């Protein structure tokens, strides 16, 4: 059976077949979730934002213009929500009373992590590498980070990224150039191997 395109599924949803929206979610939920996760570095927040993205898409599906790709539209919503979230977090940082401050003597998580030192060296190295890559990505400015994630993990062209980010192709090129230089400098130690 021939697979329906996103646009055809959207038509079905608009015509009353709400369950067809499940198909759209099956196709794009994972990408959006990982995009938001990489921007926010928190699974819970990423899940909340992903749900909000699909709620907004569902609510406004009739305003979707079929000239654009549905995935691009979703990424655009996701990017805006993530930036709002990051701005809000920056302005109003929250601290958990349950979670100990990293590095303090009550940082049990750290103590548990230290116990992991007895685990195989390769596993530790892998964890260390993951943390370094995560930190390198996290060190990028918000927009550069979004551009990198769209390019690296979603394999979007510069043109598509510019649509999601609402900027010119040359701005995307410049953002990615700077981001790649930063990543190269921060990951030099591993990249030389």
């Amino acid at each position, binding site marked *: 059976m021939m697979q329906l395109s996103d646009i055809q599924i959207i038509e079905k949803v608009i015509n*009353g077949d*709400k369950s067809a929206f499940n198909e759209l979610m099956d196709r794009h939920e994972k990408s959006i979730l990982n995009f938001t996760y990489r921007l926010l570095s928190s699974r819970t927040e990423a*899940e909340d934002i992903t749900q909000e993205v699909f709620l907004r898409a*569902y609510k406004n599906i009739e305003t979707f213009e079929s000239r654009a790709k549905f995935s691009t539209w979703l990424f655009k919503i996701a990017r805006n929500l993530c930036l709002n979230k990051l701005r809000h977090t920056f302005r109003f940082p929250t601290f958990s009373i349950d979670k100990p401050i990293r590095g303090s003597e009550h940082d049990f998580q750290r103590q548990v992590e230290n116990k992991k030192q007895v685990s195989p060296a390769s596993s530790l190295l892998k964890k260390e590498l993951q943390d370094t890559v995560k930190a390198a990505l996290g060190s990028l400015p918000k927009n550069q980070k979004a551009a990198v994630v769209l390019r690296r993990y979603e394999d979007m062209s510069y043109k598509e990224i510019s649509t999601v980010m609402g900027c010119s192709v040359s701005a995307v090129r410049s953002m990615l*150039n700077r981001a*790649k*230089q930063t990543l*190269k400098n921060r990951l030099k130690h591993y990249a030389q191997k």
Partner: protein
Amino acid sequence: MNCLKIKKLLPGFLDSELEQEKEELVRQHLSTCSECSSEAKLLANAWNLLNKLETIKPSKEARAEFWEKTESEELDKFPNVFSWNRFLFRWSPVMVAAVLLVFSLFYKDYLPNSHDKEIVKNIEMLENLEILENLDLLTDLPVVKEESVEI
């Protein structure tokens, strides 16, 4: 092209986002310059390291929660049922155009044309003349009044 310029083009080159001409220039340069070649390798390796990040999967609970929210927020109002809001949103430009068309067809006789404007102008002029005629400027002036008394 010198090494500095080539290094600026490397990120775009690695993404295959350069124009064909520039891409060929970079390719040729890399085949002869070991410094730029190792820089390109470093950039590519750092970029590939991003693969090491974990990928997460959406949970089934999240999907169930999504549909619960759509129902609680009463979003579930797609077609089958006629919606005035949707109707007005879709057809408002057409309705505005139709109203303007009807207005212009039926009321065009009532709108002032150049002939009407000419008549109005003449009436105004006549009215002004009448006012001027009725004004007895000489007698109203105080100086004239005094003179007339002396006479």
